[in-house]
């Protein structure tokens, strides 16, 4: 194993960079301010953001799983 629980320093925060993804996606408004493609009659603007609620949770879960495996921060 590369990582040890007692390992210190900034690199133990590297998995958390994944959490920047929801910020970039959500704050880049022009990327989703459109009607097409629709999903079951729902414009893109709405279903895309609703989908990102779930994807955002997945990102948090992934980081949680990685950090659990690497060991807890002190």
């Amino acid at each position, binding site marked *: 194993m590369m990582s040890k629980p007692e390992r210190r320093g900034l690199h133990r925060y590297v998995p958390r960079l994944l959490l920047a993804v929801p910020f970039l996606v959500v704050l880049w*408004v022009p990327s989703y301010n459109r*009607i097409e493609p629709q999903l079951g009659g729902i414009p893109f603007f709405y279903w895309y953001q609703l989908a990102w609620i779930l994807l955002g949770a997945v990102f948090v879960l992934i980081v949680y799983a990685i950090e659990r495996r690497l060991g807890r921060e002190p």
Partner: protein
Amino acid sequence: MNVTATTIFVALFLLVTCLGFVAARWRKADLNLLHEWGLGGRRFGTVVTWFLLGGDLYTAYTFIAVPALVFGKGAMGFFAVPYTILIYPILYMVFPRLWAICHARGHVTAADFVRDRFDSRMLALAVAVTGIVATMPYIALQLVGMEVVIGALGFPSGGWIGHLPLIIAFLILAAFTYTSGLRAPALIAIVKDTLIFVTVIAAVIVIPAKLGGYGAIFAAVPKEKLILAPPSGDSLGAYSAYATLALGSALALFLYPHAMTGILSASSGDVVRRNAALLSAYSFVLGLIALLGYMALAAGVDKDPAYASGFSAYGSNFAVPALFLASFQPWFVGVAFAAIAIGALVPAAIMSIACANLFTRNLYKEFLRPGCTEAEEARMAKIVSLVVKVGAVVFILALPQAYAIQLQLLGGIWIIQLLPPILLGLYMRSINASALLIGWAVGIAAGTYMAATQSFASSVYPLGVLGVTIPGYAALYSVLLNFLIAVALTPVLDLTGRRGAASAAR
């Protein structure tokens, strides 16, 4: 009056009243200790914390106001969705650490934490007062949510008799909060959240089926409301407003005292981490609730003469209650309205407890009665929780509702000013306490000024940068200024502070 709906509504209300009092015996402990009464003994596991935080953050006012905003303003009102997407990464990154420090040091409030980290009574006072002042109008708005559904059940509105159901509901709330503390809203939240989930799932299945599917619903929405207006000329227009409202609201949320209380009552930092992923179930429900605004548009409830009096009394806040009345069987209207009314009780209880904790710990014990015993402390908090609720009722009955809405808007701008002391307290303790205090004061003043230029009707301020107008959430702009000042003044004040100490020693 709608008899079936009212009967169901009252029955469910009685059920949670009983639960509220029974909660005192749940996980039995000495409720004469503040951390037992006001934090549930810090023993709530993943599931209870999920219900408690969900019940706490997704308030009755949210359920009424978010779809009302979408109903009235269209796509811009949907910013609540990106906002709730962003709160969870923030919760995950910052708050388990805060939980750990508060747990180890026995802190009950954010102001306790700041007092300890920076050894500054004045900074702690600023944090406590900001928390209380920002939360009071929020409690008052929970009453607005409750008033709308009570009105929709057909109770006579206006006058002393019209306010009676609301007063009774709040007396009940005050009584069980006093006896059971945080255990009461934690237990009631389980009922509240279940009812909300059932109502929303029914709504997103039954109502579109009646209206001809989601395609037909969105087709009924005027084109200019459906997406944000693209920027034109020298202004970033709706884009920057939408993004900054989402980010600013997300940064502010967990600084509210009631959110902090919910987090600190968890039994471990891991409970907080897990909930950072699991709580998004509520965000999804909130997103569906936002769409109810369009369903109300498509159903044309605002043009139905049956609901004209409701809309004239409550404005677009009546959109969702009218939609439910038009779409559901009377018994299920009772369930749905009970969900909203009970949805007001849970946050109102937690908010009043959080204010009581702040007042007792950081004003009463710190400045008025430093030597008070633990039992005195808990008794004081219980009394303050009553005072806070009476204040909220008087506020909503005696003043125009617009004041509560404007104050809540200002509350968001004020509460975000606690971000530098709390965030820097977690990661950069070398920052100067006086610099933080000056940053806080400038942030409050600048944010309030920005809202004042919009006549307190909007919190979006058109900031001009190099000839480009960037309309954005005043809270975010003012907290940036707050951060800059705290960081820039730290070396200056550290230096003069050392000189002062040196000359005093001489």
